[in-house]
């Protein structure tokens, strides 16, 4: 199989100041060059992240979309539930249609004129990792040659209730984020960043065995947000991988921080290195993805 090259990144990260969410409608209009009407911030921020990722380029029409999110379009679902149960109002047709979280995939595809595969995938701790894996499966099978992979987390007001939903303390800093990668197959050139793997493991022993089998030369580990410090240190020691890369320091809370790892790595001065990002869930399962600078 040809290399899967990360052609570009698009990041939106916005820690919330105070208790009011920023207006994303104006940002979307500025980014997209036109108004997108009758959609909420989940769809708008999906479009903003994807547009930043492709920049001035036009993705080929066969480009696939893989969007991940832990909570999906919560804003639309909450609005519909409040209307129905608290206010006695039936769902509005477009609001109802937009309760499906893959509506965001549709708007991205429509904006860029894409007709390829379209997938929305979620997981408790490995949403972004699952999207990367699904994309790699399609690349490996020869089904896809160009793909946009996104991780998207939005908030709704009041933030006090959002923090309850997220299991956070009352004053915990929170953020919205939309992280995207544009992947393409090809022969990697010096300076390219290549996505090599995205794998899941039933337990730590399987992860360690996989890390050891990949070899340790120039490998740097990144700690995913659901993996605690002690477990990360133990894995690094067992796999004999002492180098680590920190990309989450100072970030306010959002669910899909794994989506920020690769662009942070690309922007770092870790030349000639491979980044292995590892994450964990409460059941003792693990997920890892690997990117290498050529």
């Amino acid at each position, binding site marked *: 199989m040809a290399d899967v090259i990360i052609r570009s990144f698009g990041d939106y990260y916005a820690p919330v100041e105070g208790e009011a969410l920023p207006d994303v409608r104006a940002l979307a209009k500025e980014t997209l060059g036109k108004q997108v009407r009758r959609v909420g911030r989940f769809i708008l921020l999906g479009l903003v992240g994807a547009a930043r990722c492709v920049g001035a380029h036009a993705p080929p029409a066969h480009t696939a*979309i893989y969007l991940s999110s*832990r*909570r*999906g379009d*919560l804003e639309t*679902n*909450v609005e*519909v*539930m*409040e209307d*129905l*149960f*608290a*206010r*006695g*109002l*039936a*769902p509005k*047709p477009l609001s*109802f*249609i937009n*309760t*499906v*979280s*893959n*509506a965001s*995939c*549709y708007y991205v*595809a*429509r904006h860029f*004129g*894409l*007709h*390829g*595969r*379209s*997938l*929305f*995938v*979620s*997981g*408790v*701790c*490995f*949403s972004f990792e*699952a999207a990367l894996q*699904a994309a790699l*499966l399609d690349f*490996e*099978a020869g089904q896809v040659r160009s793909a946009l992979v996104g991780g998207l987390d939005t908030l709704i007001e009041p933030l006090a*209730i959002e923090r*309850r*939903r*997220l299991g956070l303390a009352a004053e915990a800093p929170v953020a919205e984020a939309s992280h995207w990668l544009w992947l393409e197959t090809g022969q990697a050139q010096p300076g390219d960043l290549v996505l090599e793997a995205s*794998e*899941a493991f*039933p*337990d730590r022993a399987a992860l360690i065995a996989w890390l050891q089998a990949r070899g340790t030369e120039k490998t740097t580990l990144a700690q995913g947000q659901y993996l605690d410090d002690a477990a990360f240190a133990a894995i690094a020691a067992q796999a004999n991988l002492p180098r680590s890369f920190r990309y989450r320091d100072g970030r306010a809370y959002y669910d899909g921080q794994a989506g920020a790892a690769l662009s942070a790595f690309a922007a770092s001065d870790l030349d000639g290195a491979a980044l292995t990002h590892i994450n964990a869930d409460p*059941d003792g*399962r693990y997920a890892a993805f690997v990117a290498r600078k050529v």
Partner: protein
Amino acid sequence: MKRSAFLGAGVHTALGAGLAQNIEALFAAPPKAREAALQVGAEEVRVPALLLAERPLDDIEARFWRAAEAVVGQAIAAAGLTQDEVRQAAFLIGTSSLDIAVSEAIYQRELNEGADAHPLTSNSTMGRLAQRLRQAHGIAGPEYTICTACTASANALLYADQLVQSGRVQHAIVVGVEIFNQITALGFHGLELLAKDGMKPFDSARGGLTLGESCAALVIGQTRADGFHLRGGANLCDIHGISAANPDGSTVADVIRLALADAQLTPDQINGVKAHGTASLMNDEAEAAGMALVFETAPPICALKPFIGHTFGACGVTELILFCGMIERGFFPATPGVCAEPSDLGVRLEQKPLPIAPGVFQLNFFGFGGNNTSLVIANG
């Protein structure tokens, strides 16, 4: 060219709890839907629904979990997986509405209790349903919750197959779940897409859809000599509209052709088609036009939603299991009383189960968000 084999199934629909009951019911006429009464403010709205057999619409929080957990257990038992095989298996759920019925019940209860109630505070994590089902069965492999509306569990099968074929796992458990919930029911009511008199896909007298409930699970694994297996498949995004495929049939034809190419087959090699068949004018038009563009001579066409309702995200795995069960019994499904003569769309459905030999079949699914999926399966 063979892909993953279908090793065992569990299913619970309006036709019954268990595969045998479901298949037996497909030899009779489609059941009559019952009406579920919902309250919207001061107004009572009655919606047609084919609800899970033997699971009355009460104790919403419990009925959902019991039904979903049971079908996963049925599929694992039918496939004969060992405990270690179950632990290593991938677990993929396709669903449109997740466990929103449970969240609705909790929110309503909290509102009634006068609490400081807000929606989705008990759970806002989409993967919680898969996590809970996976934990209940001791599964520790890769886990996907796929939400692509009515193609969700068909897409879950495509990725499950790729996980198996790539060697990442030996087995995958693919689940489709759709449980009656008020948002979906009233959403389709608001779109004026609910039928008053049963689902009649492709029929000139079509009147829309009936809400269906289903929990279905399929275990797949490496190819085996006999039985059904996946032969190919495709998924494409249709940007004509968010709620319906292009009525000229072009995008439907694209995904059907791509699935055939993936299966290395030509249209004339298809022995039968299971249509999506939602009985909405826009879907039926697009689907009929798409099939006409691909098939010079139409193979037998069937639609299963008249029997179980539209089970949305669950329809991929549910209808696949029912279709395979019928073909394994030697019959192509019929829908007595529906589309007996070629309709205004030029489609005719069988009126009696049609004796059929093992062969190659195509199953089509289309969903909100412009999501179109086609599967090609084969036996023998």
